[in-house]
């Protein structure tokens, strides 16, 4: 049952239509709701998340990588914990439960006309994919669009099959920490690309997502160039149980990541004064 366009309490049953292997241990699951009414009514904003139930195992928060418009509904998940490992054991045709969408989403209306810089570390590219595809779908609404992606090794690069398309439609740079002999691209951590890409700071907004160490280094580098912390936007990850502001596990300062986030500016994060 949906309330205000959200599935709040009881998960809606969805079928895994197709599973695609991405990088090692990461798979994409294409989903459709069994209830056709929900399938038609389910909409979301870039940056929102769902609570995914793997039956018999539990529930966890999962970001939404598809663009809100003209994109097949899917989630991309690395098998890490109890629930996501169990998800990794499912096959096409199996059922899962979905609640959501929850959270605030990226502020697209406010950033129209600006240069957009996406900086992703590893699978940090998954929650950013929604916005990347959305921005590229509305390419003329934005100034320069730059994508900086850092991965451990060439085989850890997310969405490698989109690389050519993204390099054609925006300024996309890829780097790896540990290159293989056949790697011809950049080498080094992702923050080194900021200089190479000549990232602008005027009229610019940066979307940063990745592990905590990468997040801090990239933000320092961007601010050193002169980008204000209120134009550095990120999405936080937290252990969550309810998704609707009641269990309080995801509290960051006075806010809850599930209802006030997961999208925050770096300035907000600094004021809230908690570790990433």
């Amino acid at each position: 049952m949906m309330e205000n366009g959200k599935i709040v309490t009881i998960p809606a049953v969805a079928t895994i239509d197709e599973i695609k292997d991405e990088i090692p241990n990461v798979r994409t699951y294409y989903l459709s709701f069994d209830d056709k009414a929900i399938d038609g009514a389910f909409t979301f904003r870039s940056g929102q998340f769902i609570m995914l139930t793997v039956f018999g195992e539990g529930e966890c928060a999962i970001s939404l990588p598809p663009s809100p418009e003209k994109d097949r509904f899917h989630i991309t998940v690395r098998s890490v914990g109890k629930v996501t490992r169990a998800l990794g054991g499912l096959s096409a045709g199996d059922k899962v439960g979905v609640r959501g969408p929850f959270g605030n989403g990226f502020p697209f209306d406010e950033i129209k006309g600006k240069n957009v810089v996406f900086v992703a570390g590893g699978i940090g590219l998954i929650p950013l994919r929604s916005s990347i595809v959305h921005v590229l779908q509305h390419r003329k609404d934005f100034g320069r669009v730059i994508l900086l992606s850092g991965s451990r090794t060439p085989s850890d690069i997310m969405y490698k099959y989109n690389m050519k398309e993204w390099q054609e439609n925006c300024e996309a740079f890829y780097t790896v920490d540990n290159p293989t002999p056949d790697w011809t691209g950049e080498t080094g951590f992702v923050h080194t690309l900021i200089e190479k890409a000549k990232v602008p700071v005027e009229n610019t907004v940066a979307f940063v997502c990745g592990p905590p160490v990468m997040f801090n280094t990239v933000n320092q580098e961007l601010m050193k160039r002169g980008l204000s912390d209120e134009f550095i936007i990120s999405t936080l990850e937290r252990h969550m149980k309810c998704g609707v502001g009641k269990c309080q596990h995801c509290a960051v300062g006075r806010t809850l990541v599930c209802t006030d986030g997961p999208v925050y500016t770096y300035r907000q994060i600094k004021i809230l004064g908690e570790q990433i």
Partner: protein
Amino acid sequence: MYLIKKSDVLRLAEELGKTHDLYGPFMEPATKQAMFERVGKAADIDLAAPIPALPPKHALLPHYEKILAYSYDKKTQKVDLAPIYDDRPKALFGVRPCDLTGILCLDRFFLGQEFLDEVYKYHRKNLFIVSQTCVAPFKQCFCVCCDGGPAASEGYDLNLTDLGDTYLVEAGSEKGKKLAEAMGLAAADAKHQAEKTRRIDKCITLFDSVATDNKAWISRVMNRVTTGFIDEAVWEYIGNQCFECGACSFVCPTCSCFNIVDLPRKNGGAHESDRVRTWDSCSYEGYTREAGGHNPRKPVEDRRNKRFFCKLSYSQSKKYLRPGCVGCGRCQWVCPGDIGLPNVVTYIRREIHS
């Protein structure tokens, strides 16, 4: 306003017990502690029992509760989901004002925010609350510092005040009034009301000599806690004393954090599971640990200051429409590390003065 003879007061409980699951305070012989639990019969209730060890929040937010029963058969791909809502009529008889204040905080938190908590809503649906005015404080009490007592001003269906050989009975809702009328209670007048006021005033003057364990000048620290201008060393000092046992959360009338786990159903089929909601505490290290092992709030002091932020900040008060502490003194009572809320307030005030 009505009157009921002291010897007759449990007739009210008896009447409620006919249509409700009856909860009330009593002395537990084994532990010699006052408890507030479901009772077998009205006569088991002891209104003179001291403040119970646990607040009655478990009637609305049980320690352990199944909220969803489901089955998923992979062979047939059949999924059955059956939510479990508990709307049994429950009557809480003899609730202390601080605990009633706690319930009102939970109401506002679970029913008054962006999302409404369905499970709580059903627990609350058919609840009947009979509160009682405290005519004397206990050693641990500091409700007068937090506007949590000693008399309830809202939220009850009936409120009892001990006037000596009678109880003054005030109705706070239509269903409370209906019950009092149906019981044929005698009417009270302004004289009885004045006697109630006199007894509350007397109770407040007794705090100095009786409630000697705790004082908490919370208004003095709310600003600091909200803005975060408290020396890290203070939180570290507090964190170093924390045993991470979670007792403060469990005895707190306003602590409501919960965990959710899916478990295979006991004696159920291979495909059957239950979604279970249990009490949780922000003092546990695993509370914020993510699946990959990363824990953004690993040091204990980071978790401790979170709890006091919940009790003492303006931001959280906006959710409760009052401070998150009701002044029952239970956290100070149970804390093995001596960092119950009143002590924490003292530590922060000391830092302000130094």
